[in-house]
């Protein structure tokens, strides 16, 4: 088992989950409460990674981050090296790839919060931010946990986008799924099996958590 690849993957998954929470909370809030007519376009863009082949997504991300793109040029002027095939590129690619896994459970949870609570909060003088932090978010806690679990597990296991934008550089962009692929190519089945089992276990635990939360058998929250 390649511990370097494993730790790198965990680091990637934690970072991506953190970034996606920061991005996903406002996006999900906007999707839930906006009355703009073109909202469906944003919803479609957010859901795109669900249906696009990872290679297609990875290809465009690679183009967008490449040394000829504005982002790539800006990054190079800032840091002195190119963005493609770095850990940072991996983070950006994963954030885009896992976006729907954060936004959709959050938006679904927000939309089930009774609007009467939001109205009551407003009549009690609370700002929108306070209403969100004190009412909507606590009442969406199972959706939040679902988003975290799904995003983490999804990022842990991704392959196509990682390969396209990160390549396979040990210690930099080589994640467990790519490691497994390499081991299988080298007919190193025992090692591949070990790593695969770890991923399998993580996915199973994450999904069990999601279903447990959404069936509301969880006893952690006293008001359920």
């Amino acid at each position: 088992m390649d511990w370097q690849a494993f730790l790198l993957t965990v680091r990637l998954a934690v970072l991506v989950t953190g970034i996606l929470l920061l991005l996903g909370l406002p996006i999900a809030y906007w999707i839930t409460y906006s009355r703009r007519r073109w909202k469906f376009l944003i919803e479609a863009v957010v859901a795109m990674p669900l249906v696009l082949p990872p290679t297609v997504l990875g290809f465009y991300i690679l183009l967008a981050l490449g040394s000829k793109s504005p982002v790539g040029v800006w990054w190079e002027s800032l840091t002195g090296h190119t963005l493609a095939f770095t850990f940072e590129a991996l983070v950006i690619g994963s954030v885009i790839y896992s976006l729907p896994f954060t936004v959709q459970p959050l938006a679904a949870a927000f939309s089930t919060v009774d609007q009467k609570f939001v109205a009551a909060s407003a009549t009690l003088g609370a700002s929108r931010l306070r209403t969100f932090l004190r009412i909507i978010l606590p009442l969406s806690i199972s959706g939040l946990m679902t988003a975290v679990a799904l995003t983490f597990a999804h990022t842990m296991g991704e392959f196509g986008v990682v390969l396209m934008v990160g390549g396979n550089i040990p210690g930099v962009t080589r994640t467990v799924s790519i490691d497994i692929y390499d081991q299988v190519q080298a007919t190193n089945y025992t090692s591949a099996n070990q790593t695969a089992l770890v991923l399998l276990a993580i996915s199973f635990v994450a999904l069990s958590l999601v279903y447990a939360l959404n069936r509301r058998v969880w006893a952690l929250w006293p008001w359920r």
Partner: protein
Amino acid sequence: MAVEVIKAGGNLSPAAPAAGGAALNARIQKRSRAHGGREFVLDLELAIPAGITILFGASGAGKTTLLDCLAGLLEADAGRIIVNHGVLFDKAAGINVPTRQRQVGYVFQDLALFPHLSVEANIRYGLAKIPADEQRRRTAAILESLRASHLASRFPREISGGERQRVALARALVTDPALLLLDEPLGGLDAPIKSAIVDDLRAWNRAHQVAILYVTHDRGEVFALGERVLVMERGRLIAQGTPQEVLNAPRQEAVAQLAGFENIFDATVDATHETQGTMTCRLAGTAVTLEAPLTHVAAGATVRLAVRAGDILLATSRPHDLSARNIIPGVVLSLEQRDFMITAQVDCGARFEVHLTPGARDSLQLHSGREVWLVLKTHSCQFVGPGT
């Protein structure tokens, strides 16, 4: 104060408090579309003083829509809302104070207590802008005054319906609102608990003197509270006054139905008797005539008359020597018991509903098919509007 019946369109009569003296002054127009696609128009004007004003109307009359507009949860299409001289909304001037700055206390029909916060945290929620020790002091004080101190650390799901209603009231009152909106806040409570909470509310308002709009569709509650009542129907204000005034002297069919006039008839005025102050009306399609108090209609006009089922007497032989002017023979069609009230349907050519006690039924040995005489006083026959 005399009863004021307001013409459709919602103009206040001159007897209403002047704009300067009212704690709440509002003119609101709001179009909305119900789920059925049916358009609903709220169009009314109100000026109410400090104290409890009951907002009465059937479901769908627009009571909650009105409260939501006052609280700023819905934006009116046109109009103005002024609370204690402060303009909260003025469409023409482009003023629309957001809900969170309106200082409007709102107890929702389903209370909307935050389920994840304790009773104390629910009440403190509206006090975020003041120091923590002051928050604690005021929370304790309001819980005390509503006799709910023992509930402070409980969660909404752990307390009874009546306790929840007290907590919701406390949460609204603790913020010192300038206007209090109560949307059927005491629905489903037993009368003693209800009146205890209302007493507490009155005590609170002696010190605060704000306008309280108390929504109900329960006739009994209107009489129990016994204060100023506004009657709403289909988005309009159709009458106001004390409950007795509004409900006992219905001059509009909507009020009559709301007030529990079980018998409403189309009739033609056969003759008017100016010297007696009465008129003789024949119920449409029948030979039944009723003597009713005189109103300003000419003979031959069609009118609607309303009679309370409880105001009709039943006799099993033709009564003599009565002051009542209307004695009508008929046949009992059916008798139905609900709790301790018997509802009899009597066919006199027109069908009358009559309410009586089980004791009266037994001593008269009433059964369907029995011949009876209905006895109605002239003043039990109310004119409620022109006929259709």
